[in-house]
């Protein structure tokens, strides 16, 4: 009894934390006004957005971005994975980490980086113009947004296809070679069909990520007014001037209606992909495919991609944060300044944002990992109805884009009397972050827990330890390293997060990500540049520590 009680409490608290905010969004969407004011049940919010041509435009753009991203990212990511895993490309070891950088840089920072690098008066645009006379691209067009989104999502595809390729035993390929297939035929007839479940999964994942993309279209779509559904939602407040919560809730519900089935689909596809992997042969050491002279072309293409999706935005931000102004004919050395950083450190809001970001990454990250661990232990090696229920609860927040999850949590803190005093504390932001990244964190914890041999725990039971003692004395000490890794990854993810804090932003709850979104709207480019650099530096420190401790950046 004593063992089942905390378990039920953990699961009940989890279910409440996930379903109450989500339920509030759906409930709000069928009210005629904000839930805290007298309002009646009605569908007028849906009627409003259906009548709004901007909504349809945003929906169209969203599909264009999601599909375009897939068309660009999936082939490139799969080829990149094949080259990195299966060939003798020079410098493969050295390239592994830089390839993953775009995943860990906040999209809003990335978007800003492209503006200051490739925008009308961006560094690279000006340099290009100096050499070639004119600039053939327009960073603010929808096509540019799609290309940038596609190229910066290549690492997501790379992650899943490379691990599928690694798991593919070389014996199945060798068997094909011995039966008389050329290396090309082996790839076409054996390797690619065997990783196709992983590619299918990744296709759905990329489409899903495209559907809830926010930072890039917010920054890049603004000047020419290209809206996607998330930015449409964000701009709704300005549109009517009054808090139009019911309209926002209606848009949110529409988005979730698309993303939730996608999340369930991903789950099914991932399971089938893993079943495929389970049939793998023995994975002996794979002999890399010799590329011959082609390896230099392959290397050049990878470096070009890295240049565009890592070097260009990062260099842009770094430069922009140390120059007072920039444009045609300005000598870089004349405009160097540290004023922007001084401005950041002079303003108490900014200092608070930095301290809060650090707090939420370190302390908040540790608390979140602790919470994920409690949930993980509650379902560990128990294949019953409660565990299956938890499986689905954990998936649910995945379907809710951070912007809306933050909004929902904000409403919860408005709505529930005893939570109200906590609204303007960092706790509300932490709570939203922990919910938004629940699925991610649980995957880290569960994969650590799966490493523990069941007989080690059974041995504990046999010599007289209760379930709780086994968890405390055996399971948790055994996954110490996994927990440290999870904490570091959650730290990076929490530093990178920006959209979730947007609606929770108030004096006392500033975090760097949300602060950048809010400052960008006010046009404070100098401070945004400095904050962006600080933000990247924080993530970079996390990354360096993680690499130092040998944390695997993916599973």
């Amino acid at each position, binding site marked *: 009894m004593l063992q089942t009680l905390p378990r039920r409490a953990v699961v009940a608290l989890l279910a409440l934390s996930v379903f109450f905010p989500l339920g509030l969004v759906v409930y709000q969407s069928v009210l005629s006004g904000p839930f805290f004011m007298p309002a009646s049940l009605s569908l007028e919010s849906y009627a409003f957005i259906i009548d709004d041509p901007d909504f349809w435009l945003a929906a169209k753009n969203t599909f264009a971005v999601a599909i375009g991203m897939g068309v660009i990212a999936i082939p490139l990511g799969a080829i990149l994975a094949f080259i990195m895993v299966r060939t003798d490309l020079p410098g493969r070891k050295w390239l592994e980490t830089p390839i993953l950088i775009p995943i860990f840089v906040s999209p809003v920072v990335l978007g800003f980086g492209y503006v200051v690098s490739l925008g009308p008066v961006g560094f690279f645009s000006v340099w290009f113009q100096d050499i070639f006379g004119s600039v053939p691209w327009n960073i603010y067009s929808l096509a540019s947004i799609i290309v940038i989104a596609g190229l910066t999502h290549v690492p997501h595809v790379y992650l899943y296809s490379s691990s599928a390729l690694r798991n593919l035993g070389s014996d199945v390929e060798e068997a094909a070679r011995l039966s008389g297939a050329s290396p090309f035929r082996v790839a076409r007839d054996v390797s690619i069909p065997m990783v196709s479940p992983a590619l299918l999964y990744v296709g759905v994942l990329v489409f899903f990520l495209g559907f809830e993309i926010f930072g890039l279209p917010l920054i890049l779509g603004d000047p020419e007014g290209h809206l996607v559904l998330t930015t449409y939602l964000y701009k709704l407040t300005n549109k009517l001037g009054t808090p139009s919560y019911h309209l926002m809730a209606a848009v949110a519900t529409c988005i979730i209606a698309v993303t939730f089935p996608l999340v369930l689909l991903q789950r099914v596809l991932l399971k089938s992909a893993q079943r495929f992997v389970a049939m793998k042969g023995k994975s002996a050491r794979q002999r890399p495919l010799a590329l011959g002279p082609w390896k230099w072309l392959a290397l050049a293409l990878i470096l070009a991609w890295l240049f565009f999706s890592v070097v260009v935005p990062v260099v842009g931000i770094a430069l922009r944060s140390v120059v007072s102004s920039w444009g045609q004919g300005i000598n870089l050395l004349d405009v160097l300044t540290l004023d922007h950083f001084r401005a950041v450190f002079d303003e108490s809001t900014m200092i608070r944002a930095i301290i809060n970001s650090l707090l939420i990454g370190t302390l908040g990250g540790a608390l979140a990992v602790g919470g994920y661990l409690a949930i993980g232990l509650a379902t560990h090696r128990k294949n019953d109805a409660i565990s299956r229920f938890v499986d689905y609860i954990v998936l649910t927040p995945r379907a809710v884009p951070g912007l809306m999850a933050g909004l929902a949590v904000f409403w919860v803190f408005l709505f529930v009397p005893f939570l109200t005093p906590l609204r303007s504390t960092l706790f509300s932001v932490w709570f939203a972050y922990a919910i938004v990244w629940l699925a991610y964190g649980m995957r880290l914890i569960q994969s650590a827990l799966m490493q523990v041999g069941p*007989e080690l725990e*059974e041995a504990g039971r046999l*010599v*007289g*330890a209760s379930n709780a003692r086994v968890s405390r004395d055996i399971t948790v000490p055994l996954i110490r390293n996994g927990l440290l890794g999870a904490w570091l990854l959650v730290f990076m993810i929490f530093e990178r997060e920006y959209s979730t804090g947007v609606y929770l932003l108030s004096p006392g709850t500033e975090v760097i990500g949300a602060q950048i979104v809010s400052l960008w709207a006010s046009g404070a480019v100098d401070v945004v540049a400095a904050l962006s650099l600080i933000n990247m530096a924080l993530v970079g420190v996390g990354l360096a520590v993680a690499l130092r401790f040998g944390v695997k950046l993916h599973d």
Partner: protein
Amino acid sequence: MTDKTILTVDNLALSYGSNPILKGVSMQLRRGEVVSLLGPSGSGKTTLLRAVAGLEQPHQGSVTIAGRAIYDAAAGIDVPAEKRDLGLVFQSYALWPHKTVFDNVAYPLKLRKVAQNEIVQRVHAALKNLGLDHLAERYPHQLSGGQQQRVSIARALVYNPPVILLDEPLSNLDAKMREEARAWLRNLIVEMQLSALVVTHDQSEAMAMSDRILLLNGGVIEQQGTPTEMYGQPQTYFVADFMGSNNIMTGRIGDIKGGEARIDLDNGLSVWGLRRTNAAIGHEAKAVIRVEQAHVADADGHNRAEVDLVTSMFLGDRYEYVFHAGKDLLRAWGKRHEVPGKRWLELPGDAVWIF
């Protein structure tokens, strides 16, 4: 059930979903006795051990240890594994990699709130008993397979459980060490007067180590008895086939005289043997004879046949002869090398079982 009985399993049944694994197993273990659960993979022997330990969930029957019901489906009793006070030596040893040898062995005592000085003393006594005292501060990964196994045994014995369960205790050791460990383990169990239930899939291991053997097949006990009974008087074809190495031939019953029968084999031979089947004359049957019972004879005689010797193989301590008899390959053992050719092979009537 006498008061010497320490473990009683009564009509235990267990299923994984709709797939029955144990179909009503009953057995007893007496104090100071070693019983082996023997059977092919999938026979349910490990499941039975784990059900006794409380790691699997039966749905019918009962388990009693030293007069205390630890599982009883009818009475709704299901004592959790940690309250059963049993010792289990895992196949993989399951030593906790984050604890030293000392801490591994001390943990059960710590859970039982034994005083610290007594823990030190009892752990060292247990380790010394198994010749491990000098390794107390090592971690499991710094030990050899045999040492890990001893630590695992020390951990299971340190709190004096009434019954010790061993799951394939020798299977993780290499072939040569296995025979030495078998003798060592048997000696330890006898010296310490332990009551042990051992799971194994190796019939010679079962015979060497135990006082009694339970042979499981498809979730039921096929036969139980002492090693000599199991080997010398198999009641069913399955038991005869599973124990020992055999020549097995099929044919039809040709004649019946009391407890003996003649079988006319498909390979053309015809032999008398002990009748273990109710099949009538003309019905299909199988003849089984241990390889060591068949031997080469000099001339014709009762239960002898002339067959082709194909090859002799040197096995170190003996030769194995391979004969052709119709479509069957027959084997026999002998002391010297024989050149191929016609030979008289004797299958003694009291060593042939007809099922």
